[in-house]
């Protein structure tokens, strides 16, 4: 095909499109008979031909019924099919693959690079990194997150993964528990999430030193220590994208499904479900990284959240700016 014919065709399409638009506009503005009128008229001209009525049924509109159930007036809702194919298709398939790939990638990274260790010897002098209330909030969030992740994964992948192993009945019984746990822990997670955002937002604001961290990729590859504030840019990324954005998305979409008693439609809940699953999987992927770094990825990190204290060497090497602030008494955190 030459360019000229292509241009010609495009031009023709454009003209046709304009014509169609022009043609449809006055039509839309004209007094269109309602479907009910169409049906009434059709009954006059062709009794027994209910085509207008069937079109209405397919539209998913709500009709008259004495039934008081949710959306009882809707005869056929087609969105369910779209939701089913999205959920059972891409979400399950790519979600599953991504989870496995990322887990494997982290494992391989660990195998190759090993954990981040301290360059200098610990001083034995401890400084407080996380006061008690911060730790409580963290572990509440983390604990509920893990529970939600496990039960959520079971809901999405359980029947592919667990049923062939443990069978329908046992899985069913476990899932009755799992689903209720998920539904009741969910709001707890959301609450502790909000608390977490409030207490850590200030320390996660962009600082000029973060540019250095980005330039050096956090020293993950080279193993060198990059100075940073109380939280380095990696942690900040996790905080803003993982915790704040995804956490809130997951919570809100979860609430849409968890409290169906606000007249939300099935369609609302379908959309919420897809948003929930996708954001939860992405959050989980990021969480893999966070958990890795917080446990076996970096020595000392786990202790800091467990006890709330870090060795001065650790602080200096990982969060030099914060260390200096603490030493200067500017961190705002009590010293122990």
């Amino acid at each position, binding site marked *: 095909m030459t360019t000229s014919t292509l241009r010609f065709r495009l031009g023709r399409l454009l003209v046709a499109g304009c014509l169609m638009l022009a043609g449809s506009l006055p039509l839309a503005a004209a007094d269109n008979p309602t479907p009910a009128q169409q*049906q009434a008229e059709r009954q006059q001209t062709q*009794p027994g031909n*209910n085509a207008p*009525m069937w079109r209405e*049924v397919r539209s998913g509109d709500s009709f008259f019924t004495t*039934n008081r159930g949710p959306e009882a007036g809707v005869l056929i809702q087609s969105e369910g099919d779209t939701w089913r194919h999205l959920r059972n298709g891409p979400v399950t398939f790519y979600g599953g693959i991504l989870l496995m790939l990322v887990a494997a990638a982290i494992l391989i990274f660990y195998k190759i690079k090993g954990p981040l260790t301290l360059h200098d010897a610990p001083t034995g002098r401890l400084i407080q990194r996380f006061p008690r209330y911060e730790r409580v909030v963290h572990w509440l969030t983390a604990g509920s997150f893990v529970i939600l992740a496990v039960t959520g994964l079971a809901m999405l992948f359980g029947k592919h993964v667990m049923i062939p192993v443990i069978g329908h009945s046992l899985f069913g019984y476990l899932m009755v528990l*799992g689903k209720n746990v998920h539904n009741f822990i969910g709001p707890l997670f959301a609450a502790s999430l909000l608390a977490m955002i409030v207490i850590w937002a200030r320390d996660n604001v962009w600082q000029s030193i973060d540019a250095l961290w980005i330039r050096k990729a956090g020293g993950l590859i080279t193993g060198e220590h990059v100075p940073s504030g109380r939280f380095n840019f990696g942690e900040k990324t996790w905080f803003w994208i993982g915790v704040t954005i995804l956490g809130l998305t997951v919570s809100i979409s979860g609430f849409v499904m*968890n409290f169906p008693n606000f007249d939300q439609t099935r369609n609302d*809940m379908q959309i919420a479900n897809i948003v929930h699953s996708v954001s939860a999987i992405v959050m989980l992927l990021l969480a893999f990284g966070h958990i890795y770094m917080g446990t076996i990825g970096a020595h000392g990190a786990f202790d800091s959240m467990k006890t709330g204290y870090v060795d001065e060497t650790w602080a200096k090497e990982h969060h030099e700016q914060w260390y200096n602030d603490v030493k200067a008494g500017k961190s705002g955190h009590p010293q122990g």
Partner: protein
Amino acid sequence: MARMKFLCDTERCIECNGCVTACKNENETPWGVNRRRVVTVNDGVPGERSVSVACMHCSDAPCMAVCPTDCFYKTEEGVVLHNKDACIGCGYCFFACPFGAPQFPNGPAAFGARGKMDKCTFCAGGPEENGSKAEFEKYGRNRLAEGKLPLCAEMCSTKALLAGDAPVISDIYRERVMRRGKAGEAWGWNTAYGKPEQAAPAAKEAAK
């Protein structure tokens, strides 16, 4: 035995809700659970049509496909049943079902505590022993095991609602269409059992 289906003849349905009451009576479903409902399109306008709708026992049942615990199963007669012991009340089947068939005893309750899903069983009970008390309490009457068809259809005063073997009921329907000399459409069959060209020969004829 062939494939069990429902067929609602919209030219005959008079919106008496007899099927709904019959179902409630036979299966003793609690307040708020209506396995069947009657919906009227263009209510009050000449040409209004009513449809009695319950579970259509789809060929490719969306509820089955999305159930996280895979609690559904399909019997030899094509009836879609479920195991309430494995049901977790997540509501996914309700999201997926085109016909709004799944019902929940607690309704849209907070914390998603809907209770075990309940839906039309084609009066075929559930996994428990046929005709047992446990089966009745969970799923309602097992009329199929008594050699009977669902009560909603058998009670229908105008015989608008038919239930039974697909070839037989589509034959009955076709005879009606021929007698009244007017075409119709078997309600919901395209959605539940695929487009006419994919459907069984009898259904195809009925849809013509």
